[in-house]
């Protein structure tokens, strides 16, 4: 099977569907593979993978490595790691991507440690470019630029792996765009036997209970988001955001500072280390606008910033700026919406 030096995406699979984040990575992978003149590959491990290629090929995938075994679903760390480690030793990918999910962030580091390859977590952008080592003067052509926020989102760093392969990166769901390359695209399927890539000792972790709790929060799907930051000032004031959200049929979001302050649940965090959103209307209440937050909401169609500080950084990307206190402005918005909406 010695088709080496390609770009491979680890695809997650649940309830008969390939995860969105994996399809987003295939889309990005196809673009980069074209640029490098290499093939795009996918690897998927699990149970009941019957028609999975139909979902994967349209993204421009040339080879699918399929490992089907009842013991591979639900995901556990060791067998999936062993599959990737052993497969990567064989096919020596140049680049490998996985979702920055609880699976990808569990699997990626383990694989990178075993292969001594570099891994960059939660990339927000992936590009191809050259690199010169400042110390040795060695030039490297066509490396993967793994671009990610660092330091709580206060800066953005470009990371490269000059020597080690594969160059590995994880990306959160919703950061890259998902786009079918060609609905008739086909490649080859390579069926692998789990027993060739795992050992019996890999199956020591047993899942004794698993219940799906659908998140009550649906930030990504909400056309209107009312988000609060540290400037909201208190948990009580966050209630006002909820009232406005209920009135408008919106979802409540938050910046990291508000989550860290304990005013709102973690799953509502918007930004590079939370959810990336693109709603029709984004109402930012008391959010100063750190890069880490702005990067997760700047593509909103209309941004209204309510802040007592007229110089809050978020105001530079807002469409409408209301300089005032959140607790004064929100009740008025609620009142006038109720008055005018019939």
């Amino acid at each position, binding site marked *: 099977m010695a088709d080496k030096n390609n770009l491979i995406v680890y695809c997650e699979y649940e309830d008969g569907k390939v995860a969105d984040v994996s399809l987003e990575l295939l889309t990005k992978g196809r673009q980069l593979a074209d640029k490098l003149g290499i093939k795009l590959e996918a690897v998927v491990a699990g149970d009941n993978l019957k028609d999975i290629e139909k979902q994967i090929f349209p993204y421009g995938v040339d080879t699918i490595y399929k490992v089907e075994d009842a013991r591979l679903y*639900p995901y*556990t*760390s*060791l067998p999936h790691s062993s599959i990737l480690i052993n497969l990567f030793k064989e096919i020596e990918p140049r680049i490998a991507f996985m979702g920055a*999910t609880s699976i990808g962030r*569990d699997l*990626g*580091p383990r694989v990178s440690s075993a292969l*001594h390859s*570099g*891994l960059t*977590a*939660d990339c927000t952008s992936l590009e191809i470019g050259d*690199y010169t*080592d400042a110390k040795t003067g060695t030039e490297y052509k066509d490396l993967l*630029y*793994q671009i990610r926020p660092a*330091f*709580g*989102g*206060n*800066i953005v*760093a*470009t*990371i490269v*792996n000059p*020597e*080690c392969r594969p160059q590995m990166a994880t990306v959160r769901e919703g950061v890259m765009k998902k786009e079918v390359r060609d609905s008739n695209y086909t490649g080859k399927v390579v069926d692998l036997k789990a027993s060739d890539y795992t050992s019996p000792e890999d199956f*020591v*972790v*047993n*899942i*004794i209970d*698993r*219940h*799906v709790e*659908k998140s009550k929060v649906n930030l990504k799907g909400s056309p209107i988001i009312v988000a609060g930051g540290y400037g909201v000032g208190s948990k009580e004031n966050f209630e006002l955001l909820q009232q406005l959200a209920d009135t*408008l049929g919106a979802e409540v979001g938050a910046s*990291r*500072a508000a989550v860290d302050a304990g005013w709102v649940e973690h799953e509502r965090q918007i930004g590079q*280390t939370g959810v990336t959103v693109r709603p029709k209307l984004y109402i930012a209440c008391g959010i100063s606008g750190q*890069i880490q937050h702005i990067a997760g909401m700047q593509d909103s*169609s209309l941004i209204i*910033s309510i802040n007592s500080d007229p110089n809050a950084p978020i*105001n*530079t990307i807002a*469409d409408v*700026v*209301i*300089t*005032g206190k959140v607790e*004064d*402005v929100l009740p*008025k*918005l609620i009142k*006038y*919406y109720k*008055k*005018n*909406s019939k």
Partner: protein
Amino acid sequence: MSLNIIVLAKQVPDTRNVGKDAMKADGTVNRAALPAIFNPEDLNALEQALKLKDMYPGTKVTLLTMGPGRAAEIIREGLYRGADDGVVLSDRAFAGSDTLATSYALATAVRKIGNFDLIIGGRQAIDGDTAQVGPQIAEKLGLPQVTYAEDIIKAENGKVTVKRRIEAGVETVTAPYPLVITVNGSADDCRPRNAKATMKYKYAAAPSEVAADEAKKELLDKKPYLRIGEWSAADVDADLAQCGLAGSPTKVKGIENVVFTAKEARNVEPTDEALEDLIKELIANHTIG
């Protein structure tokens, strides 16, 4: 039945308030310029260890951290809250480590500590948010791992039962120990300082912290439990080629302060009239309603 638990902890710069001098030209963090705190999820990890200590009397909780000498501050904090011992792994050779080189160094220190059943750490640290060090240490030590733990329910007869919090919901798993567990921020908060422990460990220190103070040095000799372990790369027999910048496959090519495209914003006064007009406008153009 008692357990030996190693808790991995990191002293991190408080990234919630970062100034412009926070990064050095080579892309590494200028730690000296920032207030340092106990990484929040490592406190969640410590709580899980202390809870197990309550459940299984005789359990020993040892904190392990890597960082500059001042990282002994978080070991002291851990002792005040109920940990039994602590080690700071500190050496210039570790400077500039990426996650892989960090895991390598910590794995060597874990081997030196030796006797352990569980290694528990926070899922990730707030200065990097990578969540990579836990699984990488597990791999380096050839151990299983359970990440995203919310509750370590029990550890008996060689098996742990752990509740995990993942996107899809909640999963309960059993796994044999020794193993590595990383704990989510959704787990219980860490208990506060214990008054008795705080008294007992008030003068706990790493030798380098008291090097200039004869009286305090003497105290460490007289009461060995006050001595916070301080290990260098040589002490843990680390291969220098795998440490620090040399042992890091990832390199920082560059860092940028991102400038977002500024828009011309319209200012709306917070008056009743102006806000009502805004609402009417948003309803009229079908943004809301």
